[in-house]
């Protein structure tokens, strides 16, 4: 087979990083990205991009840990290179605080992030309503910079990108040998996955450059994540809420909750409100299938459903998806050889 043609549907962090991994593992492939939205209008652009994993109930922990470790190692190297500022990757330290002692003393990722330890009494004094906490240093992927950096690297390897709303993956079977589905929340409609549901998140992105540390409530609802130019204040986790319209009452509630953690945020300027729908699922759908219709076969690799943890595991799942694409291509080449016999 001459250069196998691979279509990646979706241009958020999952689509772009998966496409990049495919170019790395399969240099002879011709990769094209098709997406209804590109940065700055993807779900990824709304996210703070903090590397603090979300636990998927349906995926074995050792797999999640491997994905996280792979992602962390990859980004750690970028953060330490001259490309760090362009890629939007930077280290940030801070605290995760709990009103109620968590069941697990050590989360599965505690030895992947840097310097993880319980907070001292003196540190906890800053959070009088919380009884314990964890201090650590992790990485943050600022968007749009990270997505734009991925796009730049993709273009440099010859990957084409087109704005196109794909209504059905079958549309692509004539032009492409393999289709990779990184449509995020779009997969609900695109492949009719009823197990995929939105968890709506509203955030504020504010100008408060004196905030250098992150603060996160262990309940996952209130967080302060300092990015390169803006601090992300969050948030909400509203299951099955599909609305992308910011809610003013929610804005005030988020602002008040964050100010109670960090009073200096009262002085924050230029508040921008954003909404994203976390593409949530019991487990990430990371598998390959062969679709069949009227004698035509279409290999499909799915890589979606990362919910609240997309950034934390993106590189790990992208590599696995690229591997699955490799398997699809090998299978196609095997069968085309057979056909020639």
């Amino acid at each position, binding site marked *: 087979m001459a250069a196998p043609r691979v279509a990646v549907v979706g241009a958020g962090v999952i689509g772009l990083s998966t496409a990049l991994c495919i170019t790395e593992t399969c240099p002879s492939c011709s990769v094209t990205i098709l997406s209804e939205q590109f940065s700055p209008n993807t779900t990824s652009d709304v996210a703070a991009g903090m590397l603090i994993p979300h636990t998927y109930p349906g995926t074995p922990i050792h797999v999640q840990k491997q994905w996280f470790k792979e992602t962390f190692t990859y980004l750690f190297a970028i953060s330490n290179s*001259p490309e760090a500022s362009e890629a939007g990757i930077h280290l940030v330290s801070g605290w995760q605080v709990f009103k109620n002692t968590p069941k697990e003393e050590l989360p599965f990722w505690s030895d992947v992030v840097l310097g993880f330890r319980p907070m001292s009494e003196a540190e906890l004094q800053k959070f009088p309503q919380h009884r314990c906490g964890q201090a650590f240093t992790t990485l943050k992927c600022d968007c749009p910079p990270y997505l734009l950096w991925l796009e730049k690297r993709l273009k440099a390897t010859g990957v084409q990108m087109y704005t196109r709303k794909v209504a059905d993956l079958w549309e692509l079977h004539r032009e492409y040998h393999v289709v990779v589905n990184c449509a995020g929340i779009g997969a609900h409609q695109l492949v009719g996955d009823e197990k995929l549901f939105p968890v709506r998140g509203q955030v504020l992105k504010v100008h408060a450059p004196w905030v*250098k540390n992150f603060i996160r409530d262990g309940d996952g609802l209130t967080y302060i994540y300092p990015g390169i130019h803006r601090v992300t204040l969050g948030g909400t986790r509203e299951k099955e809420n599909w609305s992308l319209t910011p809610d003013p009452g929610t804005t005030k509630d988020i602002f008040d909750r964050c100010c109670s953690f960090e*009073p200096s945020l009262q002085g924050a300027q230029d508040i921008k409100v954003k909404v994203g729908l976390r593409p949530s699922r019991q487990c990430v759908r990371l598998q390959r299938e062969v679709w069949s219709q009227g004698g035509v076969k279409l290999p499909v690799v799915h890589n979606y459903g990362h919910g609240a943890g997309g950034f934390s595991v993106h590189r790990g799942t992208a590599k696995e998806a690229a591997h699955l694409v490799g398997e699809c291509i090998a299978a196609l080449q095997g069968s085309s050889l057979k056909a020639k016999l």
Partner: protein
Amino acid sequence: MRVAIIGAGVIGLSTALRIHEQYHSLVPSLEMKIYADRYTPHTTSDGAAGLWQPYLSDHGNLQETLWNKETFDYLLGHLGSPAAKEMGLFLISGYNLFTQPVPDPPWKNIVLGFRNLTPKELELFPGYSYGWFNTALMLECRKYLPWLTRRLTQRGVKFFHKKVGSFQEMFAQGMDVVINCTGVRAGELQPDPQLQPGRGQVIKVLAPWVKHFIITHNMESGIYNSPYVIPGSEFTVLGGIYQHGNWNEENSAQDHKTIWEKCCRLLPALQEAKIVEEWSGLRPARPCVRLERETIHHGHFQAEVIHNYGHGGFGITIHWGCAMAAARLFGTILQEKKLISPSQPRL
């Protein structure tokens, strides 16, 4: 009771405020004036990045460690207040890096979350094999000094832009007590061979992705002669120059090169940072802070001077502890003059 404070850096203004806050209601006749040849943003304090961090060792000077602690605790208490942003006060975490193991510093229990660096963290800093991580405070004088100035102005304290030539000049104007916060140029008012400039130079850049301070240490070249990176609320300060005895306040091209190359080696991402400003200043270096009373006779009268200078590269770190100590000395003077009774409650 007429008080003159000479010097309007962090030491002068904070000492003035502490004295006024403590004694003005007890001594209604208290008239305070501030004299300085330089005001913010042209003082030595303004050029400093503003990181609260003492030197690695206090050389047995426990008094200074106590003043450092008093300052940290005072500032920490203000973090949650609405004034914090206006004061230029915020928490910051970061790294101290060494090429060999060193003893823990006297301030390890003053800062928050002090710990040694893990091997993985040290991978970030090739060439350094040991280090500390802790959370400390930033107090940016470009905001703090104007904040102090506003508080003093509200209290009716008067400011004069004037280079004072001698203590006698102040006494001739009827000053009862002079507080000497003249920093590196204190020797012009009274010779002090122990006071020397510790010249520093810094490059201010735009590098908003840097969220941690990074201070490297070279035990041979001495404090601040090794690269450091300190992110502020607007700019990131790159430095690493300490030249004892050098009075030159002009920027040096050689020092610029040293700072830039060393800091970029430490943090490769800095190569993309845009340079915004360059500045040189003279740390008022002394083996120990001069914080003491001196009675000066002029004619038939005696007048009091309280010296509060020689804070080297840790003026911001120690300023409030020293302001309180200077105010206590002032209180003693008031008692001697029977302006307050010894049992007067302190604010």
